[in-house]
């Protein structure tokens, strides 16, 4: 397990990988390596995502931020508050061996049996027999077949889950054997659920012998790195006393002895000589040998632990490399006469393809598409697990539906709809109250504030740019809430309070209040002076251009009048913002107003200056 360096967004939150979702955030968290506090990593935010545990320092986020991949975590233990000691969650890394197996099974087809990872060791190492027999133990449990059963909903007979069934890659299209007793094919979700529950119960057992703090022999032994000296005496890292290999604690000083890590083929990826970590202030890309502790000084540990365990069970990171879910249930598609499978992945190439032409063909295609959509939606909502399995498909479908409805309803707001449908991708990054423990209102607001800042500065959407670098808070609120697709909406008061936090959190946007009370959002480096400069420039330009018709006044001195609409057009502001900006400039004495039958118009201030 490694501390990985972390990319941060503009709002100083972890940059999420594709498909990664944020699960929980907690502030006032400190980081421990083994027993020791890591300097500079003692006050920060802990972000739990579906793929990683991230720590981001509150003081110097760019420098002191690390992440740990969940896939390298073996288990997490909860340690309650005791006297002055804050509650902690201890994260144990996976022993190297099982990590190899897992990553292989994630990337390769489940049908291929994972090659025995320990074989090179056995063949190469000149080890005594006793050790080999010791070593033979781990392979027996790590690639263990899923020992799960599913209960037939028809006859309630317990059937074994087929050995080649992998919950991570299986889809509704996977062929399932019928019930052994009644011969009825089981519904996909039943088997999936059984497999998942079996997998989760297998994944969180009591500590196995191989998962005691794994590490490596420190000191000079690292030269012989590829072949750890199994069976040789272990020298204590603290007092250097050479202990018997079977001892777990030093006989002299009772320091925990490092378990002999069973280094496998990928040993070359390891860091050579880990220095004592507690003395190291720069930890990214260093290996964690023992365990990491997250110290929760401000609560939230229970939820974090819960969600972390949930994430470890769900293993979303496996999905990252998984092939897209193929369209489900060809069996039902076959039942409809003439329905041809439109997908290429169809495992039944022999299915009768009826080629229809003309309107009949179009209608038939429409019918098929509807049928397909119905199946997808039907399957997805059948069960939550199933929804998770087909999440990708559902999101894609939702996007196309949104795009279609956008095309049919209005012509002018095509852009808006584009933003909305794109924003489905950004859904993973939204902060919801659900992600935070109930008491931490402030944390919710600060997270929401960061969330908003990211949303605004995201160049893909360019929301602020399109509005001329300034937009009213109400506009932003509506766009933001719409981009959340109607779930986890933000209340106006929370929204305003989050926006007020921008300045405090030093985020790249700021909230500005106009004289009339209108609240607008703009880049932090944008100021009234800049706007005034822009307007001044504009006014100077107007003085250069002779008007179209002769005017009674001296245009070379007074220029001509501008309206809020013109200003909005020129600077790409909304009209409300333009009116406020003009009034701001008036307030500063740059402009003066003319009220007439044409409405309110602004002139460069010829009264005070000329």
């Amino acid at each position, binding site marked *: 397990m490694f501390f990985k360096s972390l990319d941060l967004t503009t709002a100083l939150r972890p940059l999420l990988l594709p498909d990664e979702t944020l699960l929980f955030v907690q502030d006032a968290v400190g980081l421990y390596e083994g027993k020791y506090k890591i300097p500079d990593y003692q006050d920060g935010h802990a972000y739990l995502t579906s793929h990683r545990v991230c720590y981001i320092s509150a003081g110097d986020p760019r420098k002191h931020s690390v992440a740990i991949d969940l896939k390298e975590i073996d288990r997490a233990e909860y340690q309650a508050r005791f006297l002055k000691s804050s509650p902690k969650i201890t994260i144990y890394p996976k022993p190297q061996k099982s990590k190899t197996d897992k990553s292989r099974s994630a990337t390769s087809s489940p049908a291929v049996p994972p090659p025995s990872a320990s074989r090179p060791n056995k063949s190469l190492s000149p080890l005594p027999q006793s050790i080999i027999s010791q070593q033979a133990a781990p392979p027996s449990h790590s690639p263990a077949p899923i020992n799960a059963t599913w209960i037939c909903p028809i006859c309630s007979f317990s059937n074994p889950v087929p050995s080649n069934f992998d919950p991570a890659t299986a889809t509704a299209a996977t062929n399932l054997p019928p019930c052994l007793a009644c011969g009825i094919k089981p519904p996909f979700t039943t088997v999936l659920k059984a497999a998942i529950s079996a997998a989760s119960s297998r994944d969180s057992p009591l500590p196995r012998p191989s998962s005691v703090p794994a590490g490596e022999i420190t000191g000079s032994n690292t030269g012989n790195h590829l072949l750890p000296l199994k069976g040789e005496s272990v020298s204590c890292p603290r007092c250097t006393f050479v202990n018997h290999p079977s001892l777990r604690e030093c006989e002299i000083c009772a320091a925990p002895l490092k378990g002999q890590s069973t280094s496998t083929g990928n040993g070359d990826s390891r860091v050579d000589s880990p220095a004592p970590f507690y003395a190291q202030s720069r930890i990214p890309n260093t290996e964690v040998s023992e365990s990491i502790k997250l110290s929760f000084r401000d609560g939230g540990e229970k939820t974090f632990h819960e969600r972390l365990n949930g994430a470890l069970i769900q293993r979303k990171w496996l999905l990252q490399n998984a092939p897209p879910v193929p369209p489900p249930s060809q069996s039902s598609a076959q039942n409809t006469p003439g329905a041809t499978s439109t997908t290429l992945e169809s495992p039944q190439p022999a299915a009768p393809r009826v080629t229809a032409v003309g309107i009949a063909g179009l209608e038939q295609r429409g019918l098929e598409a509807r049928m397909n959509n119905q199946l997808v939606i039907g399957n997805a909502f059948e069960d939550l697990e199933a929804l998770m399995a087909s999440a990708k498909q559902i999101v894609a479908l939702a996007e196309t539906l949104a795009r279609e409805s956008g095309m049919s309803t209005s012509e002018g707001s095509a852009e808006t709809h584009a933003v909305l449908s794109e924003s489905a991708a950004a859904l993973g990054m939204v902060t919801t109250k659900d992600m935070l423990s109930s008491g931490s209102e402030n944390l919710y607001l600060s997270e929401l504030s960061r969330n908003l800042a990211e949303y605004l500065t995201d160049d893909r959407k360019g929301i602020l740019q399109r509005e001329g670098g300034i937009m009213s808070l109400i506009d932003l609120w509506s766009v933001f809430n719409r981009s959340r697709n109607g779930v986890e909406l933000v209340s106006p008061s929370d929204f305003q309070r989050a926006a007020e936090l921008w300045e405090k959190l030093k985020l790249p946007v700021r909230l500005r209040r106009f004289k009339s009370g209108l609240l607008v959002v703009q880049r932090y480096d944008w100021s009234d002076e800049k706007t005034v400069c822009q307007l001044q420039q504009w006014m100077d330009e107007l003085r250069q251009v002779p008007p179209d018709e002769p005017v009674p*006044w*001296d245009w070379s001195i007074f220029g001509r009048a501008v309206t809020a609409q013109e200003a909005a057009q020129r600077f790409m502001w909304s009209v409300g913002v333009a009116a406020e900006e003009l009034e701001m400039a*008036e307030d500063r*004495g740059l402009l*003066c107003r*003319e009220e007439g039958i044409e409405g309110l*118009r602004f002139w460069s201030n*010829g*009264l005070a200056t000329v």
Partner: protein
Amino acid sequence: MATPAAAPFQFPPTYNFPPFFTPQPNTNTREAQLQKWSSLIQAWCRHHRQYRLSLVEAVDSPLFHNAALRKRLDLREARSVIDWMTKSEEEGGGGRRAEWIDGSGGSQGPKAVAWVWWRRPEEWADVVADWVEGTGQKGAVLTVYELLQGEATESQEFYGMDNEAMMKTLNILVKRGKAQVFGSEGQEGVKFF
């Protein structure tokens, strides 16, 4: 009363600036605007030898009505400009360049007619005193009519001045101890010391 001069009145450039006719919300701009209005009104009255300004008549005159721009200062606005002019500079006004004439408006109510002091009474008093000294008439007795319409004063600025305005001026000289006014209403005489 005063005969319009041959040369037409030269309006300042701001007179053709449309925002000139809109009350400005910015205090600094408003100050500048009022200052400009004040000097325009004074210049207008000086040009036309006008001492009393009746607002009701003036709002339709070119002073307050710019026909080319189709803009005008309405009665209320004109009133606030004169109001500003009546205040002293310490009060944030225009240096007492105007003074409302009570009860002179008749049916038009208060604040209908105002003195416009393109020279303040004190300044007029100085002008008259200088003229008396310059022509060696100290100790002489003159009627007010002589001062206003006499041949001797034809070249003077106060020639043809409003009777009441002249009385205000003379009263100031009386207070300074430089003149004495006697005689009945309409038949006043004045003696300069």
